[in-house]
Each structure stands twice: as structure tokens, then as C-alpha cells.
């Protein structure tokens, strides 16, 4: 096993403002750029029944201006300053981020602070209606009108019991988006968008002491709010073991397998599962790729990955059939390769290759200040361990062949998984894809 020629350490400081906002500072003066990343500990798992998609719709609304920032000015000011920006929502968290030339740090802080502290007065029904339409079009573009676009949400519906917070997709369902009201917006903001429920990361060309002063200057006067109640989440270890079929406008079938696995808070089980996914399909030398794509010619492609989630874990194995190969034949092929993990032992070189790829991926994720700020924020909010940015290399490096084998034996069990076949729709049948289950 090789070790890095030099150790990788990113010095950082963590502070807490009087109002509860945690501030993480990571100085790196190699380029005159700075990333500002604000992550709120709220995501689609915190939505109410019948209110799916709301956390993400809300994220859109936070770009519609605040008391001192006119509508449409947020994007314009950052782009005019030469910066990049965006926001994103997932199950566990919502983030807002800018990377700007470092002399524009105050601009990013001012914008983020204004929408944390002075948002409510600016929101209107017209803005809500407009962004509701935009998000519905996002759902059409990225899910409904895209081949296989409804696959993951269909798996989630079957893998989790009714009422489970991970049972619905972050984009939400159309009928729920229609229901979102201005009162919901205000309630959601008051509940989840207080400074104590967020982490601010400033990463890049800064002097930490100066950056902390600036953070306090812009965010310090925002009043603290009571911490939101967090219902405990049932960690599902048993899937439905069900097999679902979904018709779609596609020409070849695709098989999705989702195994309930470790959350990011279960280290090193999570990293071990990530390495397992990598040696299954994280390169052309990987087992599923060799068997299904090279040797048996059953699949056009195959992927395996873990989702970095807070309260549950998911390991996905996804393969697209070659023309003429049925979903059943493809699944049999996948199952045979997975079953062989038990009887043909893992070779040390398979695991060391996966470790090397993981370490390279970690480094590349941390290369830009924006990527690093995102990792720091995720480590703090979702993982509950900011120092993961520095320890992750060692965690992956310490996973041995035995560990991966044990993890495979525990994790890759039929009763822990949900399987979906997406199959070509019969000619002439043009209804919406059937969801195959109740929402």
C-alpha cells in the first residue's frame, strides 16, 4: 500500500458567534479567491407529509432577494464581481455558496447575511408562484422528461416505509408543490433558517482573524432562534426485497439495485462501503464492469456508489442493458457477480486500487476552495466531524481487504435491497410512467 508523499492537512479554525452561528475558517493564500459556503441543517427529510419538494422550492426563493437586496440582484452582483454561485438541496441539508475574487469577500457575506436575517419582509406571493413554476419545470426537465429520470424516486418509495423522511425525492411531487403557501414559506424560514442551524465556511485567500471579524460584522446582529426539533429517523436495515417494474420512454432496460447501508456517521463502515462500490464498478478493472461489459456483453455500462447521508445509508448498483438483453438477464448477471464475492476472495490489489482511487478523488474534491468549503460544511453539518477534511485520507487508507469482505457479506444481502427494472414502454402506450406504488 502506498502512502502519500506528503501528508495533506488543511489548517482550519472553528468559532461560534453569540447567536449560535458556527464559523469555519480555512486560509489558503495560493490563489486570490475565496469561497463562502453557508449550509443549513435542513433538507427534504424535514418536510411535512404532503409538502414534498418544499425545502428545495424554498432554496429557490432565497435567491429572490431580501430586505436590502432587490429581486434578481443576488445573481447579478456576484456574477458582475466575477464570481460563481449556486445553491442546492438534498435530504439532509441545503447549501448556498459563492466563490469570488478575494477582495469581494464582503459582498458574499453581505448577501448571505441579508437573506438569513432580513428575508421575510421581501417574500411575496408573486415570487412564490413564479419559482413554483420554475421548479415544476425543473422536475419536468431533470426527471419526468429524462430517460430513467423517475427511477430513483420509485426505488425510494418502495425501499422506505410510509412516512419515512427518506421515502420521497428532494425535487418533490407536482401536487405537493402546488400546495405550498406563503405561510408555509414563512414558517419554514422561522423554523429552520436561524443562525444556530447553520454553518458558515470561509475558505481561501483570507486572514482568519480578519475574516472572523467580517463574519461577525455581517451575521452577528441576526438574533438567535430556538433550535428546531429533530424527530429521530428510523434507520431502515431491511428493504422490501421487492422487485418493481417501471415503464419509460427508453430503448433499453436499466436495472437499479439499492442496498440499505451505513450512513456517513458510521465511520469507517461508510468508507468501507464506498470502497466496496469502487471495486464493484469504480473503473474498468472493477468486477461488475469486467464481467458485464467486457466478458458477458450484457451491459453498456455499470455504476456503483454510496450516498453520503446523515441518518440512513444507501449503496446503489445501476446497470444499463445492451440492446436485446432483458432486465431479467441483466439482473441475473449482476447477481452472479455479486454472489461470487463470497466464493472468490478479494485480491489485495483490488482493494488497494480502490483505496488509491478514493484518495485521488478526495484530493481532487479538495482542490478548489469551493469544493473544499463544501466538504468542510458537509463534514460539520451532516457528519458532525469537521476534521474529517483531514482525517478522511487515513480512514480510507486503513480499510483492509478483510474489512471490505466483511462489509460485502453484511451489506449485499437480497433482503436488504430494493430492485427496480426500468423497461421500454410498449409502443402505443403513452400514459405517464406508472409509479408502481402509493406515494
Amino acid at each position, binding site marked *: 500500500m502506498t502512502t502519500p508523499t506528503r501528508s495533506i492537512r488543511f489548517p482550519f479554525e472553528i468559532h461560534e458567534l453569540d447567536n449560535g452561528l458556527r464559523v469555519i475558517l480555512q486560509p489558503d493564500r495560493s490563489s*486570490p479567491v475565496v469561497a463562502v459556503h453557508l449550509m443549513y441543517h435542513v433538507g427534504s427529510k424535514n418536510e411535512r407529509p404532503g409538502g414534498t419538494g418544499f425545502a428545495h422550492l424554498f432554496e429557490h426563493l432565497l435567491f429572490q432577494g431580501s430586505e436590502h437586496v432587490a429581486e434578481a440582484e443576488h445573481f447579478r452582483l456576484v*456574477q458582475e464581481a466575477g464570481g460563481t454561485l449556486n445553491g442546492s438541496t438534498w435530504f439532509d441539508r441545503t447549501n448556498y455558496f459563492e466563490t469570488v475574487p478575494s*477582495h469581494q469577500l464582503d459582498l458574499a457575506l453581505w448577501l448571505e447575511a441579508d437573506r438569513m436575517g432580513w428575508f421575510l419582509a421581501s417574500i411575496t406571493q408573486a415570487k412564490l408562484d413564479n419559482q413554483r413554476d420554475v421548479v415544476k419545470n425543473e422536475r419536468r426537465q431533470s426527471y419526468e422528461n429524462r*430517460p430513467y429520470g423517475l427511477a430513483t424516486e420509485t426505488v425510494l418509495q418502495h425501499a422506505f416505509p410510509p412516512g419515512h423522511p427518506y421515502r420521497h425525492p428532494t425535487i418533490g411531487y407536482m401536487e405537493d408543490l402546488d400546495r405550498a403557501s406563503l405561510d408555509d414559506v414563512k414558517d419554514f424560514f422561522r423554523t429552520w433558517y436561524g443562525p444556530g442551524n447553520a454553518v458558515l465556511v470561509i475558505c481561501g485567500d483570507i486572514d482568519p482573524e480578519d475574516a472572523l471579524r467580517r463574519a461577525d460584522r455581517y451575521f452577528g446582529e441576526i438574533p438567535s432562534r430556538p433550535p428546531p426539533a429533530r424527530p429521530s429517523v428510523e434507520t431502515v436495515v431491511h428493504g422490501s426485497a421487492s422487485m418493481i417494474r417501471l415503464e419509460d420512454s427508453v430503448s433499453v432496460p436499466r436495472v437499479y439495485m439499492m442496498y440499505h447501508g451505513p450512513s456517513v456517521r458510521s465511520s469507517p463502515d461508510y468508507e468501507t462501503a464506498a470502497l466496496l462500490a469502487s471495486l464493484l464498478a469504480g473503473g474498468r478493472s472493477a468486477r461488475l464492469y469486467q464481467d458485464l461489459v467486457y466478458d458477458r456483453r450484457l451491459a453498456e455500462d455499470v455504476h456503483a456508489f454510496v450516498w453520503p447521508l446523515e441518518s440512513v445509508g444507501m449503496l446503489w448498483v445501476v446497470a444499463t442493458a445492451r440492446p436485446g438483453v432483458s432486465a431479467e438477464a441483466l439482473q441475473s448477471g449482476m447477481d452472479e457477480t455479486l454472489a461470487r464475492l463470497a466464493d472468490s476472495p478479494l485480491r489485495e490489489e483490488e482493494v488497494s486500487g480502490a483505496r*488509491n482511487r*478514493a484518495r485521488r478523488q478526495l484530493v481532487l474534491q479538495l482542490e478548489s476552495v469551493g469544493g473544499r468549503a463544501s466538504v468542510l460544511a458537509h463534514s460539520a453539518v451532516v457528519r458532525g466531524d469537521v476534521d474529517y477534511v483531514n482525517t478522511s485520507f487515513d480512514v480510507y487508507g486503513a480499510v483492509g481487504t478483510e474489512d471490505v469482505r466483511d462489509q460485502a457479506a453484511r451489506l449485499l444481502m437480497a433482503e436488504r435491497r430494493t430492485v427496480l427494472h426500468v423497461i421500454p414502454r410498449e409502443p402505443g402506450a403513452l400514459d405517464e410512467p406508472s409509479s408502481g406504488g402509493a406515494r
Partner: protein
Amino acid sequence: MRLDRTRVPAPGAVPAPTVPRPNRMRLDNGMSLVSVRRGGLPEATLSLVVPAGAHATGAGTAGLASLMAKVLPEGASGRGAREMAVWIDGLGLQLGVSAGYDSLVLRVRTLSEQLEPALDVLAAVALEPDFLAAEVERCKGERLDGIRRLRDEPVEVAADLLAELLYGDHPYGRLPRGRLDTVEPLGRPDLAGFHQDRFSPRAATLAACGDLSDGFEDLVVARFGNWHGPEVDARPAVSIQQVSSPGTVLVDRPGSGQSEIRIASIGLRRDDPDEPAARVTNAILGGLFNSRLNMNLREDKGWTYGARSALTLRRARGPLTLRAAVDTPVTLDAVREMLAEAGRMRQLLPDEEEMRTASGALTRSLPLRFETSRQIAGTLVEQVVYDLPDDYWSTFPGRIQAVSRREVREMAIRLLDPGRFVVLVVGDAEAVLPDLETLGSVTLREAP
């Protein structure tokens, strides 16, 4: 002092410029090496650029360069496909080989502890591919399957057909991946021949950036110094015939929840002296979030998740494309608004604030372009492919800032000529055809 939140904070002192100066060297065999050494993270990006893009083949053999790129790592220097995969994956390398129109780039991203074996891999893949018959056939089969499957994707259907509608039989008239009819006849001799013709040290450049060791140049010479090859014309002559506008073209995709709209015409070469005005024009029309197309179709009307325009600059004249995926019932309205925004660019001078935003976004973003080794290596590659001078980026802000409002309007008149627009819609014909016919004649096409 209490903070005045009603004012946009004043920026601090502008940091020193960050455009790195590359080291240049030429090997005895003619190969160029450009490199930028950086401390920081223990990683590096290595990109070998060769003039073997899709532009170097005719439209009739579209897909040749791209298929060759796919086959290169599947057997080289006597190692079979599986052995290559184990070698590359075992080192943890990220290897990508991609053929665009104007060049073919082999890119390796690696931890610097693996720099030497990464160079071994790069040299083997680029210089000693075996084009094993079985692997060529397998890769071709995969490519054909892929082309068939991409017909399911409205975005891909639009891209493929738009290229043809704009450029006809010019090499830009097919996507680099080609089509079933052009890939089907390709075989081992085509790939090996293309490699022999286009891969030569005299026309190749290795662009490297990152944590490069002191003896990096020697490592390169040791692996690439014995490479010999013919003189290669890096700049195939191409003239583009302006295809006459076909009016509106519709691809029926029954049941589509959205229509993919493309409105495009042939634009500029990368080395056009009016490139700065074209960039500003595009930024005002649709290059930024706050550009006119997005503010109108998304932020005002809510018809789409995003509307934008893209200015594609190539060695020969690339396209300017307006694009949006819109809710099916508003398809005609959206096409009309997009055409209206193009028309407004031609009729009126842009306002001062739009000029400021466009210019700021284009020029002040330079520090963000030169942050990572991947970006810097990418910029070096771009410089090679388009023959850009070393001071291209340091003088870039001045050229953008010199663009006047009048020049933007003149550029709009040149680029956004409704008589030359191709209007392409991929969507549900039953729902949108009668509407679109109010624009004039509509040609129905199959997905290519």
C-alpha cells in the same frame, strides 16, 4: 459604527493578477512541453494534445476520431484491455481520452506520488496503442449501442440534428461521436491509419500543471523522446457553406412533458478579431443568469428551469445557440419570446448596467479560471489548440472593456440574423405542431 446594509459593500484592494507564466520547452523530436509548477496539493494534471479531432475527418467518417479515442486505452504496448484497466485503476489514475472537433486530448489526473507511472500510462496509450481487433469491435459495438440509446434523450437528439441543420456536410455537421451510418463501416485499419496520420511529436503538446517534481522534464523526455512521426498539418483548411435556413424543424417525441428549443446560426471563429464583442453580446443575451433570455423566460414567465445562449468558438466558425426546455403548452410563446429577445438585441443599444454586468462577469472572473491545476492545464490546452499568445489572458480584460454598446448592437445584427436562424424543436408534435405552423412552414424530421 453600525453597518449600513442598504449599500452594496465596497470591494477591497484588487489582488495581484494570477495568470501563470508557463515554462516552455521543445524536445529534439519536435514535441512541445508546457508546464506550470504549483505547490499546494500533491496532485497533477497531464494533458497530451494532438490534432486528431473530428475536424480532421470528413462528415462521412464522423465518429472516427471519437471511436479511436475510446479504443486507445483498451490495449497498448502489448498489454490487453483487462491488463490496461488493472494498471490504470490500480494506480488510482483518472484517465480520459476525448476527441472534440479541433483536437484530441488525453488527460491524466493523478496524485503526484504516481507521477512517473502516470507518464508511463500516458505514453503507452498515446504512442503504442495496439488496436486489437477484438477490442475495436467491442468498442464499436458499445459506441453504436450508445448512439442508439442517446436517441432517447431529447437534449442529445437536438444537439445531433442541430449540427446537421447548421453545417450540412461540413465536419461540424455531425457530432464528434458520429452516427450509426458513419460509425458502422469503421474498422481497425481506419483507426490505426488515423492514428498514424495524426499522432506525431511535431504536432503534439504535453501540457502539465501541478506538483511536478524537479526532474519532470527529464521524465517526459525519457518517455516521449524516442517518438517519431510525420509532419502533420494541424490546421486542415475548411470552408463553411452557410446552409440556407430550413425554417422551423420539429422532431416528434410523443408524450414529451417539455419541448427542447434550439435557435441557432453560424457564428465566429476563435481568432475572429471581434471575439470580445461577441462574448459581451452573448453575455447580455443569454450567457449569465441575469441575461435577457433567462430573466424573461424563467424569472418573469416561469416557463422553464433555465433559458440561455452559448457562443461556441472553434478553429472554424462555431455556432451561437439559444436554448431552453419549456413546458409543452407554451412552446410557441417561448420560441416567439426568444426570437423577440434576439430582435431586441439588434434594434436597441444595451443599457449601461447590462454592459457593466457582462464585462465584470467576463473579466473579473479570471482569478477563478486559474485556481486549480485542472483549470490551468485546461487553459494551456486551449492556448495550444487555438494558437493563443502567452499574453492572451492578461490582455483579455482590456479587450472586453473596450467593447462599446454600439459594437454590441453591430455584433447582434451580424450574429442574430432571423433570416439565417435554424429553429429546432424536439417535443410532442400533436401538442405543438399546429402552434408552430403559425411561424411558417414546419419540417418534420426523425431523430437522426
